[in-house]
């Protein structure tokens, strides 16, 4: 769990309920003990700047080059995983081939919650909370959209990476965290075989 700033506690509660263990990542050496990373919601400018200052961006890029290292970014985390950010662009990892637009749904007045259909999670709709949410303006060829809202992809996957414009940790539904934990487990099995 990247714990620079944002709603870290809510994600950790969900990870636990999804049957996995989590620990806080604040500095590079914290990465040694983790098999995957969640970048929470927060302010992408702040998180990106401080990740960069403390060497986490370089360390994570290096880690992802060594082999599949699952990362899930929610909201601010989506921005930090995007290759391209429209407008003011913060320091970031840039691992998922998407164009992201910050706060594109609008200011807080435009924040909303809605039930989404996310086919990979099954038939029951997912309660999604969008807070000053970003939009994905373009999906690269390597990126698979997993959920749509108002004609926009709001959740997507690219290899070991997962992004969502909304906050699954703000509801009681843990299916997305289970989905990510499963991704982490699979990546470990693959490494074990090779």
């Amino acid at each position, binding site marked *: 769990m990247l714990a620079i*700033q944002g709603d*870290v506690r809510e994600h950790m509660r969900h990870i636990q309920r999804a049957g996995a263990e989590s620990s806080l990542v604040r500095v590079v050496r914290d990465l040694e003990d983790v098999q995957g990373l969640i970048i929470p*919601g927060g302010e992408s400018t*702040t998180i990106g*700047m401080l990740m960069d200052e403390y060497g986490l961006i370089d360390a994570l890029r290096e880690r992802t080059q060594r082999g599949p290292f699952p990362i899930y970014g929610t*909201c601010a985390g989506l921005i930090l995983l995007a290759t391209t950010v429209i407008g003011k662009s913060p320091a970031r990892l840039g691992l998922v081939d998407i164009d992201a637009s910050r706060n594109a749904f609008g200011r*807080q007045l435009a924040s909303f919650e809605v039930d989404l259909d996310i086919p990979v999670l099954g038939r029951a*709709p997912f309660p999604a909370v969008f*807070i000053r949410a970003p939009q994905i303006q373009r999906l690269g060829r390597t990126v698979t959209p997993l959920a749509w809202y108002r004609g926009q992809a709001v959740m997507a996957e690219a290899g070991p990476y997962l992004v969502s414009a909304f906050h699954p940790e*703000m509801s009681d539904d843990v299916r997305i965290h289970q989905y990510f934990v499963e991704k982490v487990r699979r990546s470990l099995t693959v490494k074990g075989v090779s």
Partner: protein
Amino acid sequence: MQEQHGTYNVKSGLAEMLKGGVIMDVTTPEQATIAERAGAVAVMALERVPADIRKAGGVARMADPKIVRSIQEAVSIPVMAKVRIGHFVEAQVLEALEVDYIDESEVLTPADDQYHIDKWKFTIPFVCGARDLGEALRRIAEGAAMIRTKGEPGTGNVVEAVRHLRRVNHEVRMVVSTPEGELADLAKELGAPLDLIKKVKELGRLPVVNFSAGGVASAADAALMMQLGADGIFVGSGVFKSQNPEKTAHAIVRATLHYNDPKVIAEVSQDVGEAMPGLEMATLDAKDRMQDRGI
């Protein structure tokens, strides 16, 4: 389910996203840019910082919409702004301006000496000040989606901020250790609604995010409040009344993140120039204490 705006989840959710961060008072777009570059998670747009409000005297009101707009244009992080306690029309104006959070604040001159704003009526979330648990829960009952312990604004003296946060923590522990059957009596004693007291017992903490405000003037002050259990920090006069605002802002943000690492705090505190000149509480007349407004 249809798309729903202004739900409590969405209101308190934005506060959750600000956790671990620093929110800075700014009066111009230039200051807002300095705050954003230093890593602030949000800015509070106002006409004067609390220290100057103290100096100026008279009635302090909501900022000129022009100031709010120019700051919104300058930065991409959330912009908050203050309204007078009970002044729901100032709040309507700020909602029309689409600020991201409204601070119903004792720093401005109260407009109503009996009632706070009915915050449930707004789509925009509110943050309110509190000196103890009862005050915090009364504000939450009125619809506040975020709390900040009050401290004493514009003094650069952290002592009241410490007092208020410790008191909230102490009273939360009291609620947690009180048996279910005695909670109604405790609720009466604290002046708080029983359902919220039960919620505090269940969670073991305030039901919303709680930042520390009113007196943080250095990196060490910020880390102190974080170690005492604050979810984040409001800095009012502490940044732009210091000798070197850029460096002070930079240091406070990093100390808030690495609040448990004295080495980092030492490093960022080095050579930042003088902090804002502080005020000793004993020199403050009762009429000049902002924390006693709207309780």
